């Protein structure tokens, strides 16, 4: 049996962040990953000679002196070759029936662009973004401010973004634009605490970057750093059982019978999955078991990955959002396979290579796993024709929506493949095929969030289910989790210094 200070289950960005941080602070750390490469949603895949991202489409707060870059630099993971700034003149382009808005880098640019589109709403627009800037400063693990109260602000966690926006404006089109980033956490405007929506919005406005060489390169850099500090990342190592005694994990057993022991076990996988590995699940109260079993999941995501000809007027340094409606009550979610909701479009190749003849373009829209329920028990790679027919129908309806704004899109598609919520389930074990994990509504945030501590004394949770989804949310969750082992205040102070080095 091998013994470690900390064993980490799963190798998504949150697990890798914990591993790098704890290894750097002298802990012996071993990451156990079921798949044949590390990264979770950092994974890329190749088709038609092009690289596509599965989850890491872009990231915020990456400008100089901003939190995510500071965190990566602090972990010795940052490298200029990993990231590329998106178009400062318009990194996000929102297309609604009858109007388009581009978000340039920085608050002044975004407020100016929105005010030009909605001149009657200038005061509301200014007030909304003022509130965002105020609220994000109250989150110590986002701004790395150990001097502030470690408790997150209650009001920001108990007021929805819908409530905040509707107090400021009754303009439905403007409401739609301000709610658009709900795509990036998968929670409806009525259900998402304003504070979390504010962090997503702030991070993207201040520092939206693409991944220059793909999420795989970021994961590799993490592994390099972990190993440099004496840690280990074990691939093809699926944890099968957590042997507990007196609410303590004594032994971690893998599918091939290998055993590990550690002072602490950190789980980056879904809470339902990790608690299902316990050898004595009855040590958990019926109330807690019921709570975990009833956790609501965010919606499944459907993806289309296409090689498009270069005559498509698509700037790889921009992301595009296409909406079929400008009704804020019903424009985000797909209602039927023929009527996709919001479609998010980005390219896995942010910087074109010389001689490149096509460009990889991914299209993502929400898609309840219920649509794919008949094939849940079928095996990946061997699913029947009617499953593939439904996927093609969805792909064509997504193309048709984008075609309304980008005539010629369909003709530019040379080849494409698709992913369904069942694909997410297969590769990432995400319950219900969701990309964003549990539904981070009021019910699952603030005092009600799961983790980092658990009822198992030496088991901590991390990852997007623990705090908040996305690369940034998952990495910040790792700070809280690691803080339980080495103290959060010293980490925040050092990160704060890292940010100040640029100012």
């Amino acid at each position, binding site marked *: 049996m091998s013994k470690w200070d900390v064993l980490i289950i799963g190798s998504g960005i949150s697990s890798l962040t914990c591993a790098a941080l704890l290894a750097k602070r002298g802990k012996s750390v071993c990451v156990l990953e079921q798949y044949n490469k590390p990264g979770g949603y950092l994974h890329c895949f190749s088709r038609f000679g092009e690289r596509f991202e599965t989850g890491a489409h872009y990231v915020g707060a990456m400008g100089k002196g901003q939190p995510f870059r500071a965190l990566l630099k602090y972990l010795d993971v940052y490298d200029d070759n990993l990231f590329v700034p998106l178009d400062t003149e318009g990194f996000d382009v929102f297309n609604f029936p009858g109007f388009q808005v581009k978000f340039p880098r920085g608050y002044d640019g975004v407020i100016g662009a929105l005010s030009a589109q909605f001149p009657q709403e200038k005061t509301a627009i200014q007030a909304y973004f003022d509130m965002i800037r105020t609220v994000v400063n109250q989150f110590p693990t986002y701004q790395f401010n150990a001097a502030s109260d470690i408790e997150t602000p209650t009001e920001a966690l*108990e007021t929805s973004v819908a409530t905040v926006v509707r107090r400021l404006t009754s303009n439905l089109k403007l409401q739609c634009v301000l709610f658009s980033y709900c795509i990036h956490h998968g929670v409806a405007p009525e259900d998402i605490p304003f504070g979390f929506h504010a962090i997503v919005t702030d991070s993207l406005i201040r520092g939206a970057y693409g991944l220059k060489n793909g999420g795989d390169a970021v994961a590799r850099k993490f592994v390099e750093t972990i190993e440099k500090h004496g840690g280990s990342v074990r691939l093809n190592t699926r944890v099968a059982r957590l042997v507990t005694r007196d609410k303590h994990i004594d032994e971690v057993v893998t599918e091939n019978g290998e055993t590990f022991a550690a002072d602490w076990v950190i789980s980056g996988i879904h809470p339902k999955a990790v608690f299902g590995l316990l050898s004595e699940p009855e040590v958990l*109260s*019926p*109330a807690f078991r*019921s*709570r975990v079993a009833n956790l609501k999941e965010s919606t499944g995501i459907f993806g289309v990955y296409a090689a498009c000809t270069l005559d498509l007027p698509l700037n790889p340094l921009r992301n595009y959002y296409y909406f079929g409606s400008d009704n804020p009550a019903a424009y985000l979610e797909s209602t039927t396979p023929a009527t996709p909701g919001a479609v998010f479009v980005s390219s896995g190749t942010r910087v074109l290579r010389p001689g490149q003849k096509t460009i990889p373009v991914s299209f993502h829209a929400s898609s309840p796993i219920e649509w794919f329920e008949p094939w849940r028990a079928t095996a990946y790679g061997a699913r029947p024709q009617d499953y593939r027919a439904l996927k093609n129908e969805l792909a064509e309806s997504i193309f048709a929506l984008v075609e309304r704004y980008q005539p010629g899109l369909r003709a530019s598609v040379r080849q494409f493949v698709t992913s369904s919520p069942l694909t997410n389930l297969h590769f990432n074990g995400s319950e219900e095929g969701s990309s964003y994990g549990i539904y981070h509504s009021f019910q699952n945030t603030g*005092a*009600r969030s799961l983790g980092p*501590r658990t009822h198992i004394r030496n088991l901590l949770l991390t990852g997007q289910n623990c705090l908040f989804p996305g690369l940034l949310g998952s990495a910040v969750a790792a700070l809280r989790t690691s803080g339980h082992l080495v103290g959060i205040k010293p980490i925040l102070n050092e990160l704060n210094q890292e940010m100040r080095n640029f100012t």
Partner: protein
Amino acid sequence: MNTTSSMSNEQIVSQVNDLMHTGFEIPRDKLVPTATLFDDLGMDSLDAIDMLVHLEEKLQIKVEGERLKKVRTLADIYGLVGEVAIPSLQPQSEQSH
């Protein structure tokens, strides 16, 4: 199960006790109003959150997380559920929000 909108104080006590027994396997004879959650009932801060979520789900009520900080005894839980269930029991200052 009845929801709190149609419950008397006696029913609230009975239903909260049932949920504490089935949800946390606490013997019924320990479920007295003066019992403290942490010392007498053996719960911890994680259990307290589970209890909040459990009561909300089973009684179909909504309790602000902040209010949990003032809860010490089982009687405090009965009171909290009662306030949420019967608005006239809420303090004036909270009604004005």
